[in-house]
C-alpha cells in the first residue's frame, strides 16, 4: 500500500513538473527575447567595399548569401546621423550607395564611449544583421566592434 502511494506521488510530481515546464516553455516562446546579434558569432567578416561590390555584381546572390546573417563589416565612415527615435546610422564608404549600419537607441546608450571615438572619416567596424539592399546596403541591430 505504502509502495503504491509512493509511486502515485512520484507520478504526480512528474506530472506537475511537466505542466510547469510546458507552461513556462509556451510563455518563453510567446515572449521570447529578441535576437541579440551582438552575442552571435559573425557568419561573414568583410570590408564594406567587398559587401558593396558583392551586391552590385549580383544582388540576388548577395541577398541569398547575406540576408538575416550576422556580419561584421568595416569601412570608412562617410556620414553619421541620429534619427528621431535616437538610433544612429553610420554610412560606410558612400552616403547614398554604401553600407548603412543602424544602431538601436538602447545600444547607442550602452556603447556610448565606443561610438564617441567613431568620427566622420575614421574607420568603423560594426557587427549587425544584413537586411539587404535598397540603394544602400542596410545592416541593422548593429553594435560597434
Amino acid at each position: 500500500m505504502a509502495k503504491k502511494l509512493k509511486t502515485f506521488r512520484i507520478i504526480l510530481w512528474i506530472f506537475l513538473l511537466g505542466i510547469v515546464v510546458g507552461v513556462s516553455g509556451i510563455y518563453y516562446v510567446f515572449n521570447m527575447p529578441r535576437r541579440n546579434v551582438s552575442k552571435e558569432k559573425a557568419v561573414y567578416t568583410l570590408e564594406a567595399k567587398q559587401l558593396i561590390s558583392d551586391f552590385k555584381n549580383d544582388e540576388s546572390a548577395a541577398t541569398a548569401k547575406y540576408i538575416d546573417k550576422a556580419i561584421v563589416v568595416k569601412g570608412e565612415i562617410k556620414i553619421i546621423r541620429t534619427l528621431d527615435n535616437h538610433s544612429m546610422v553610420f554610412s560606410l564608404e558612400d552616403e547614398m550607395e554604401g553600407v548603412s549600419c543602424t544602431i538601436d537607441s538602447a545600444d547607442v546608450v550602452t556603447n556610448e564611449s565606443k561610438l564617441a571615438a567613431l568620427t566622420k572619416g575614421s574607420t568603423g567596424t560594426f557587427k549587425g544583421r544584413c537586411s539587404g539592399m535598397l540603394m544602400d546596403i542596410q545592416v541593422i541591430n548593429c553594435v560597434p566592434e
Partner: protein
Amino acid sequence: MNKLIVFSILLLAFINAGAQSRFFTKDAKINFNSSTPLEDIIAESNQATTIIDINNNEVAFSVLITTFKFRRALMEEHFNENYMESSKPKESREAADKMKDFSKAKFKGKIISPIDWNSEKQVIADVKGDLTIHGVTKEVTLKAQITPGKNKIIAAAEIKVIPQDYNIAIPSAVRDKIAKEVTIKIEAIYAPYQQ
C-alpha cells in the same frame, strides 16, 4: 526581374536628372497595422528610402522587410519567415531572385492631382502607381497629404491592402488574429537631394 531593372534605372535616372528637382529621405517611417478583436499587430520601420521629383511628380518608395520591428520577437520571426521561406534551397538562381524580390516592398508612381510646389500649403493629393509586396505587383491609388516647401517636403499617406492579394498566406491557426485588411501608413520628411 525586368520590373526591378526598370525600377533601378528609373531610380538612377531620378538621381542623375537636373538639380534640386528631387527631394529625398532614407529615414521615412512606415508602419502597418492589423487590428482584430483578438490581437492588435503593429510593425514599424523607420528606414524606408523615398524620392519625389517635383518636375514630373514622380514618387518612389522602398523599404527592406527585415527592418520592420514588432512588439513581440515571435511576431517578427513569423513575419520574416513568411518572406524567408524561399531561402531554403539557396543554390538555385530562381530561389535567389525570389529572395531578392521578397526582401523589399516598394511603390513607384505619380502624383496625379495638380500640385503647386511653391505654395507651402498642405494639400491632399491622389497618387497612383505600382505597389510591390512579396514579389507581387498591383496598381493602387492612394491619398497623400503633402506639404510642399523649398527646403523640405512633408508627406503622409495611408493605404489598405489585403494580404491575400499579394500571395501572403496566413496559416489557419492565426487567421483569426490577423485582419483581412492591413493598413499601411507612411510618413516622410524629404530634403533636397544634393549630388
